[in-house]
């Protein structure tokens, strides 16, 4: 057994987290910053932070992940990190020439209270920021929230630094995709493009973290939202934000700063959430939904109906980030699966917890929810009563193997498979891909476990 010390007896824990279902803010800020074209993320902390974040993002994407660090030493921790950050800004623009440096803080620099805007101001006054180049920042204390919070904070900072109010408003709609894969961002853009809607999507890691091999290495790949576009978000017709936890803060900030009205929706996972996404776009932009999207919707529904017998009543355990967890749960319930164990490590609040509770109210089984919770508790629940399917990040594979449960990788991080960066799980097509994954896992198991006489050719 891999997790041989996990037993079904649950003892209350208040202080010890075991097998976390979250990580810290800065990595989310780094990921979001990579979605700005020509941006070099910068970690204002000790070297370990950026090394860990870059390593984890690289293992997840199998792509180069560049970022810089203030490389705090003990001295900097005592006297403050201003000298380090000033030197870093100078070196980065001289050596690596980005369009923008996106600084995020760490538990170290937050604890000592470094004032980043003041340091950026000094860099500017000292002439260390070349004309037309930018340094932005966000505060990401690791002891608050999770990696999702960090993503939300950096995305909000894009608004704070760049969005400019503009009257008359342009025709475009701002889209905030949430902490999702580059492939999902591409899919969102495809959907809006077939609807004929002009959009600005931010952050946008498509073509940044799923790039091609061409024989040359580009430190700043072709993808990413440009500064020019970020400025124009203030003059957008509306903002559609996907996922309260990852995108809500930026959407509201844009509303406050530039009076751009915002619609905060679930991540478009599955039929209904995608319906709401498409319908919102239709109303806000005043366009018709093209036939091709209706066709895709019909295909998704077709798979649901055709294979419903294999979904119905299946007990599922999910560990994920709040936006994914809520949207996936609703999708599962809609196809009559039974999401029975739901855990996120992110402290997403009471409202979120009641939304989850509401989503499963018709599930005819006891549903256990822990917000924030960890994978150790999740595993103990499974020990008490097993499930038919697990959905979550790669760390769940230890539970999947020990308990011999089919497992689908979804979320962050996925360290041991590819595909997530290339093929979306959002939208109608993404829904079909999810169903394909569910079916592959469940039916492979059925094939493995069936008797010889009961072995089916056609399913």
């Amino acid at each position, binding site marked *: 057994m891999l997790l041989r010390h996990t037993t079904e007896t649950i003892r209350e824990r208040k202080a010890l987290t075991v097998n976390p279902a979250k990580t810290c803010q800065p990595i989310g800020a780094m990921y979001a910053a990579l979605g700005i074209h020509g941006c070099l993320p910068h970690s204002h902390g000790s070297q*370990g932070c950026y090394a860990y974040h870059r390593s984890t993002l690289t293992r997840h994407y199998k792509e180069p992940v560049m970022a810089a660090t203030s490389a705090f030493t003990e*001295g900097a921790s005592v006297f403050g990190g201003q000298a380090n950050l000033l030197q870093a800004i100078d070196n980065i623009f001289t050596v690596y020439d980005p369009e923008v440096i996106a600084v995020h803080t760490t538990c170290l620099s937050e604890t000592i209270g470094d004032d980043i805007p003041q340091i950026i101001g000094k860099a500017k006054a000292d002439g260390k920021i070349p004309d037309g180049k930018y340094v932005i920042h966000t505060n990401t204390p690791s002891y608050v929230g999770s990696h999702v919070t960090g993503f939300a904070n950096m995305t909000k900072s894009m608004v704070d630094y760049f969005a400019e109010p503009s009257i008359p408003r342009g025709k475009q709609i701002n889209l905030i995709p949430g902490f999702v894969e580059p492939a999902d961002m591409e899919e969102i853009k495809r959907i809006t493009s077939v609807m004929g809607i002009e959009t600005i999507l931010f952050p946008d890691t498509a073509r940044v973290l799923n790039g091609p091999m061409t024989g040359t290495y580009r430190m700043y790949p072709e993808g990413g939202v440009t500064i020019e576009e970020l400025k124009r978000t203030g003059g957008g017709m509306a903002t559609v934000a996907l996922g309260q936890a990852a995108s809500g803060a930026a959407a509201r900030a844009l509303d406050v700063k530039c009076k751009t009205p915002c619609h905060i929706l679930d991540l478009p996972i599955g039929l209904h959430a995608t319906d709401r996404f498409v319908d919102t776009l239709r109303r806000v932009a005043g366009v018709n939904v093209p036939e091709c999207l209706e066709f895709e919707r019909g295909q998704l529904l077709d798979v649901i109906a055709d294979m419903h017998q294999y979904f119905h009543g299946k007990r599922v355990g999910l560990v994920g980030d709040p936006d994914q967890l809520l949207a996936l749960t609703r999708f599962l319930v809609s196809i009559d699966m039974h999401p029975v164990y739901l855990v996120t490590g992110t402290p997403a609040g009471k409202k979120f917890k009641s939304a989850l509770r509401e989503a499963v109210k018709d599930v005819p089984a006891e549903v256990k929810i822990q917000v924030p919770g960890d994978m150790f508790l999740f595993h103990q629940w499974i020990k008490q009563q097993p499930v038919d399917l697990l959905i979550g990040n790669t760390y769940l594979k230890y539970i999947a193997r020990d308990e011999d449960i089919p497992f689908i990788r979804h979320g962050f991080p996925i360290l041991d498979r590819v595909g997530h960066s290339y093929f979306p799980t959002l939208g109608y097509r993404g829904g079909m891909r999810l169903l394909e994954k569910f079916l592959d896992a469940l039916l492979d198991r059925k094939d493995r476990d069936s008797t010889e006489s009961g072995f089916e050719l056609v399913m």
Partner: protein
Amino acid sequence: MAEPARSNTIENVLDGLNPESVKTEMLSRYPTKVARKRAKQVVVNRIGPDGEVPVIGSNIRTVPGLIGQRGCCYAGCKGVVLGPTRDIVNITHGPIGCGFYSWLTRRNQTDADASTDGHNFMPYCFSTDMQDEEIIFGGEKKLREAIQEAYDNFTPKAIAVFATCPVGLIGDDVHAVCREMKDKLGINVFGFSCEGYKGVSQSAGHHIANNQIFKHVVGLDDTVQQGDYKINLLGEYNIGGDAFEIERIFEKCGITLVATYSGNSSIDQFANSHTADLNLIMCHRSINYVAEMMEKKYGLPWIKVNFIGARATAESLRKIARYFEDPALIERVEAVIAEEMPAVEAVRSETLPRTEGKRAMLFVGGSRAHHYQELFRELGMKVLSAGYEFAHRDDYEGRRVLPSIKVDADSRNIEELEVEQDPTRYRPRKSPDKIKQLTEAGLPFSEYEGMMPEMPDGTLVIDDISQHESDIMIETFKPDIFCAGIKEKYAVQKQGIPMKQLHSYDYGGPYAGFRGAMNFYREIDRMVNSRVWNYLKAPWQESPELAATYAWD
């Protein structure tokens, strides 16, 4: 296996390029002050008549903003040295990230069923997940509770606590909490002040780990184990099963392994390790402190070994045999080498025609950039350039330079333990005369010659290489293979050059010992001769001219 010829003429070392001009070009992009600093860490190797090599700047601060490979003190302590020990509950005291990122990511394998109690906490991540209220009001209370909860849930025989950056800043006394809980629970509980900002790299964390293990664990169990030729293997972390292969070879030779620091290890082995008769050091950088302290306190000497490379493995086994001065062991070791080598040689001679003359670069770790040059030599490949991520001058230039290393402020902050001879347990394993005699016969003690004396004149040695510098190296030389870590991997491969991870082995291995050497030969052969690197151009990019028009004229 014959000693491969080493080329020593500067002209053919760096593809005919002048190493000094490559260096100048590399540093030209930097601001003046940065260039001046980096110039000390980018060195053209020259071997003097006595084997002395140029001074290289190392174990010094990374320039903020340069983008490098290094991690932090916590990573070196919790991740590297203590990570591979299966039966300690390692609690990270801090916000969640540090514990999360060091959870199972280093591929330390372990055989949990080798311990009678079967304890294995390595697949678990334990953290106090500090929140802002603990940052404001202090985290000692939560740590105390977390240790209690770890005990209640897991009943381990030892709990270790690792401090992260904010813990040191807010002044939590992890050691006091550990002492208190040790008394309360009656098990070993000890802490590490390995805050990420300490030192200039992982290296500080190795030192802190060594100190605390020595202080809190080594010497707790005086049971002398059964078996002949008792040794400890230090600085071998069982990435990809390396330690398993070395254990196999020791067993075959009849050598008794008391403890490995720390691949496939149990805390019980550390407690007992002072009863061994010889310490073998693999990774000098991360573990020499424990060896030095053990020698001082208990009297067991240490020698440097290297089990990376078949020839190096054989040589290391011979060193051990010579130390024990027993003809039976010497004979057995020779028999094992004779038995193992034909298979190795068969794979080597099969791959050699395809690897010979290919060019490699290695920028990794604190010993691997040196050790892996053995394997590349066995493959007939040339190493154009190499460097460490977090090593010190002695790892580059040899321990002969130790007296001349200036201790700077960053290193002075890392505690040096005062160690004295143990009044009852100090037992010199060899008399000074005997040590002298063995040294003269070619078995040096407490000696590591470093990487540079083994590299040809004119090769570039680059300490703490930056992204910019590796870009220039790749652009200039287009090496046939580049070795570093995960963060460097895909930027290299985008350029159509295979990149081998020498931290995680790209999830392969083992590469140590005889079987490991064979694995490595095959792996490098696969990489440098793979067809996939030739697919970069689509047919229409190769020959864009149109052969016919779409519409008939």
